[in-house]
């Protein structure tokens, strides 16, 4: 009886020891597996991160400097110390915000000879309405027929009257014509072009040129060859104004 009890106890003890040893071994093995999996994960995450960071080189926006573009209106002297290029869409609310935050100060800086500015409208928001395309077409008609001064004024009026993206209806071509006339364009000279959207093909080229330059959204603001980024439109506007004023 006593002997059997002993044997039983020994067995139990041996079993417990074996179990403990095995659990320890398994713990170690599981730890090694987890560490290996995490190492692979870190490699995947790190690899993708490095890949994306290299792909997203700021030099991606390789736009021509102010006054050198084909698809924009330029204000300010050629020999101004700063060059500012603004890619924009007449329907884009951030562009409208940027416009109202900067227009007066930028005009002042341009007139003082501190900066040359080129505004390059294109058709980014075609998925929302054809207003982007029609307004840009009208803008290029005015630029072509009436020159940069009237075109810039027309540009300003378009932003002052910018429709909301949520609008049910957008300003029609007649309205665009009225605004062009308000900007100082001769009605007979520009009406055909604006009403028939004669610069649509030109808008398409401007859009391709913007995309080719690496422009992905609006407003894209390029100051002295570097894209300006900021946490908000006001932030970008402030950076620009601080530099050129």
């Amino acid at each position, binding site marked *: 009886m006593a002997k059997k009890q002993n044997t039983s106890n020994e067995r139990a003890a041996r*079993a417990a020891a074996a179990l403990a040893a095995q659990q320890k071994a398994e713990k170690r093995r599981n730890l090694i597996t987890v560490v290996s999996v995490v190492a692979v994960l870190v490699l995947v995450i790190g690899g993708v991160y490095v890949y994306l960071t290299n792909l997203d080189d700021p030099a991606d926006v390789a736009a021509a400097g102010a006054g050198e573009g084909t698809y924009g209106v330029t204000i300010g002297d050629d020999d101004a110390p700063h060059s500012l290029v603004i890619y924009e869409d007449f329907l884009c609310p951030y562009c409208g915000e940027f416009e109202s935050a900067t227009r007066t100060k930028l005009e002042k800086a341009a007139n003082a000879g501190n900066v040359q500015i080129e505004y390059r409208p294109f058709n980014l928001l075609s*998925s929302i309405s054809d207003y982007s395309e029609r307004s840009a077409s009208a803008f290029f008609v005015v630029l072509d027929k009436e020159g940069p001064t009237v075109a810039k004024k027309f540009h300003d009026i378009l932003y002052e009257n910018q429709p909301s993206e949520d609008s049910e209806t957008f300003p029609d071509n007649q309205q665009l014509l009225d605004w062009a006339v308000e900007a100082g364009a001769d009605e007979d000279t520009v009406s055909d072009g604006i009403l028939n959207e004669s610069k649509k093909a030109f808008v398409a080229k401007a859009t391709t040129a913007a995309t080719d330059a690496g422009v992905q959204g609006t407003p894209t603001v390029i100051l002295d060859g570097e894209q300006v980024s900021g946490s908000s439109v006001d932030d970008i506007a402030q950076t620009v104004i601080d530099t050129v004023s």
Partner: protein
Amino acid sequence: MTVLHSPAPGHDERSRRGARALLGRLDGPAPWIGLGARLVVGGVWVVAALLKLPDPQGSVQAVRNYQVLPESVVPMLGHLLPAVELALGLLLLLGLLTRQAAVVSAVLLAVFVVAIAQVWARGINTNCGCFGGEGPVAHPQLAYFTEILRDLGLLALSVWLVVRPRTRLALDPVLFPATAVVPDESEEG
């Protein structure tokens, strides 16, 4: 006295039950629901990441459009998010570290819901950038609503996986087998 990885028939029932209790039982419909949850949530993460890979600048802009974080961290996050999403999706599809991946998934989705809710509340018009793309959309409020609904659905599936991480066709039980069994000989005596 041998240490067995596959318990011999006859005296394994209690130990196996004990081991299963650690990770949840593999019978009943729950592990199949778990498999479905893994495939849906993991698949969405992988697709979301892959769509962003060709366009890192778009991904950065999408983060920026939420207008929450300082510009100093925006580009880093814009590049890091697709990487994390890809890794997370692969883990879930494979059923590897399921519970941990599901926790991260749920936390990320909760953050996204809050981010979308705050642009909605502030009246900012932006594409959520969830699957690449960015910028304003035609009907932001409807879009925000459906995006939040979708993320909440994915969040629910993630939480399910946190609670029931034991699923069918998963790598976890292969790489981390349940505690093997020492035959308890005293039972025989």
